[in-house]
């Protein structure tokens, strides 16, 4: 089996250096209005977005360099 034959899974990226929600939204969802794209990204990535409230004291950007960021909703919910 080669990589092209892998079944489709939920699309994700790893952050580029310094990425914020806005930068990811502009890059990954260019056809979606920015505010809507950011809101969508945050709702698809609660494992990162919710971190802001409880963790990362003193750091405004909750996105860690090692995070997986989903750039589409769960496949099963479509």
């Amino acid at each position, binding site marked *: 089996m080669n990589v092209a034959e892998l079944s489709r899974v939920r699309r994700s990226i790893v952050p580029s250096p310094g990425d914020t929600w806005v930068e990811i939204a502009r890059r990954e969802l260019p056809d979606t209005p920015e505010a809507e794209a950011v809101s969508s990204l945050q709702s698809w990535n609660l494992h990162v977005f919710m971190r802001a409230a409880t963790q990362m004291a003193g750091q405004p950007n909750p996105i860690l*360099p090692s995070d997986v960021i989903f750039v589409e909703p769960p496949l099963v919910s479509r």
Partner: protein
Amino acid sequence: MYDLLIKNGKVVDGSGLPAYRADVAVQDGRIVRIGHIKDGARRVVDAAGKVVAPGFIDPHTHFDAQLLWDGFAKPALEHGVTTIVPGNCSLSLAPLREEHRMKLVGMFNQIEEMPLKAFKEGVVWDWESFAGYIARIRKGLAINVAPLVGHSVLRLWVMRQAAMERPATQGEVAEMQSLLRECLDAGAIGLSTSYVDMDERLQPVPSRYADAAEIDALASVLGEYGRMLQIVPEFYDADLTIARLDQLAELSLRHNIPTTFSPLFVNADNLEAVNRVMRRVDEQFARGARVWPQVQTRPIDISFCFAVPSLLFIRLPSWYRIMRFGTPDEVIAAFREPDSRARLIAEGAAYTGLWPALTLRHVKTEANRTLVGKTLGEIAQLRGVTPIEAMIDLSIEEDLDAHFLSAAMGHNIDAEVGRLLAHPRVHIGASDGGAHILSFSTYGDTGYLLGHFVRDLKMMSLEAAVKKVTSDTASIWGIPDRGLLQPNYVADIVVFDPVLIDRGVEDYVGDVPGDGSRYVRDSRGVDQVFVGGALAWSAGGGYQDAHGEVLPGEILAGIAA
């Protein structure tokens, strides 16, 4: 004249092939002959009616600290485990600068529930390098150790405070690569990292500040040696787990390394999620990648008393706060004082199903002994209170030495767990041996496998189950000369009774340095355990005192897997 002859046993040789009756001869620590043997030996063991198998290999432990005061890794050895892999989940005790010792102790305390006092009173800190740590534990080693080096620790060494703040620069990555090579040369069997763990400040551990380029650079070093990469993924979510295993697959293919992720739990509410993960594992293996999910054999249960913090209360902030930061007197005061008591009861009200199902498992007073074994629901009825009030009252009466058990909290659907364990691309592991010592016993998983899933439920053959925890593990990790009963293999051997093999009952014992205690289990049905041909434990004699002789445990660095 052989050193050791194990006669008349049923040989389950670790290959998965059918068992056969034979004698096993050992000379100079290695198996030299298997068959019908008439020659004599200095030690002869009659194994009639017993199984003779290779020693079990436990690939996911946190014995890093315990090995400093206990070279047997008790009670792992008495369960037939002859090789352990510590250093999982991005945490090892080396390489470690003196200035970072307390930082690392804090992380072990937060993540693996290792008591601070045990480190303070049980550890003589006389190493910094990985080689220094290896030299330190080698002195009294009775069990074989194949240690991982932790990614968080590498980052701390190279980046110091910045390890907990940002990605590494190219120069820092190069330094980490050199340091990793040093560790691998000194005996590390691979690298571990974590994507979920939090440190003692409840901030992400250093490994979580690494970007993909850093992981790739470190994996390239593992590729030079053909060594293992272990990760803890976001195991609570299937999409995240699949994304991580895809990352592992790319690293495995690019650098030709084995990888493993742990844990993978199966529950009533995630059956399809686990199926999706396993379908992805199958696909990635079909590409030639090696991405081994680790599955534990035992159900999840948690024991606790209010003298120490418990994972069970981590979502109940008022409870967790008093357990984590309160002295025993303060905890009792919080339980007695009406306002505080009412607040705790109110906060616990959300968990209506939890409290009545808890079982009282240990008390110290005679007055309450008749209640041991009853649920809090039953005790509450007897006393005319609510279950949560019964728990508080018992804790006061027992001076916080009342222990409760929350049993079968998950991973307990036998049909599903057994199906996973038997899957050819599932790696049996994730015991967490040596960790979480104040919440549950992490020992006896192999006895549970062989007793529960093999003998009682007949979900796997004995030969297949033994292969899973011996030669499969040795092959996956590149551990040479172990995991099989064959001539020239090292004589790590367990003799057990297939009718009796099991894990024992969980017990709370006070054998941790600093007057600490922990939950452990003894073994059932294990007769004798040999490491490198030397008797390390027997049912009749317990752990073997070496009387000044060199103990048989070795550091197993592994070969290209």
